[in-house]
């Protein structure tokens, strides 16, 4: 396992969490909970885009780890 693949794995897990949050926000009937899930979903989205940038950097620095 390389650093790049670890970071990628983390990003994928976060993406799954984002999707779960989104579906919870859809399914919840309680307005407060709906809002909270939505906010958290957006926050996780920001973390994902940061990780994506980092992955691009890693792949640029060490092209041998570039994913297929």
């Amino acid at each position, binding site marked *: 396992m390389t650093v790049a693949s670890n970071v990628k794995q983390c990003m994928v897990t976060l993406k799954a969490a984002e999707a779960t949050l989104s579906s919870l926000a*859809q399914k919840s009937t309680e307005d407060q909970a709906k809002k909270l899930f939505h906010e958290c979903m957006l926050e996780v989205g920001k973390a994902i885009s940061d990780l994506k940038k980092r992955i691009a950097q890693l792949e640029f620095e060490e092209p041998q780890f570039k994913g297929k």
Partner: protein
Amino acid sequence: MLDWVDIVVRSFIFLITLFLLTKWFLGKKQLSQLSFFEYVTGITIGSIAAEVTMGLERNIMHGLISMSIWSLVPFAIGLVSLKSKKVRDFAEGKARIIIKDGKIMEDNLKKERYTIDELLEQLRNKNVFEVSDVEYAVLEPNGHLSVLLKKENQPLTAKDLQIKVAPIKEPQTVIMDGNILDEPLSNRGLNRGWLNEELDKAGVSLDNVFLAQVDSYGQLTMDLYDDKIQVPSPQEKPLLLASLKKCQADLEMFALQTESKDAQRAYNKNADRLTHIINKLKPMLHV
């Protein structure tokens, strides 16, 4: 007319009248919620009906007139007392304070002709065995004792502990006796497709489900006919919390491993962001 035919006819007439009168004029009040006045008029109406049914020498019309007066007057008083507090206090009685500031009001006990034994019995009904636990108690007009315990004797609530808890709405029952109920399902914005998917996920067939409910977070809980099968509890929320925690730990590790200062800063920022999210979501995701 034969006597017994007459009795049959009268019985039916008064049965129906009694049913209609009680249905229209009593509303949703329970027997124990009736005021003493309503209670007595109820008995009287019943006895009139019985009297006229069996006493063949009596006129049916007279019975009906008397019954309608006995039910209309309390009904009218009920209407007036809806509007006026004074009439209400007069007709239905007032609540009387029995214990105030933790002290028994002996005078009020005497006014209600309430013995100490009765008071203790009523308190025990409320699981109160020591009078000193009570801050305030009121004897309601219908004879029930309402008890406010001292704060330290009240059950703990989330508010007392200052814990944030997930807000909930009423759950919807979506399967009864193996039949899908479409209306509650669509109330939640869900459909049969979603339900079938959830059943597949849990690995149970529709006709094995005795009861299934959807909570306010869209999670399905069910009870099966076959009690030997273990229904998995909903995993979505705990899994989400676990994976968020894992990512947070991963990010912290990346921050330690990397040489680049910029990357370290970015990792730490996102780790903090996730910690923040986890803290916010914890009350919601805790099951």
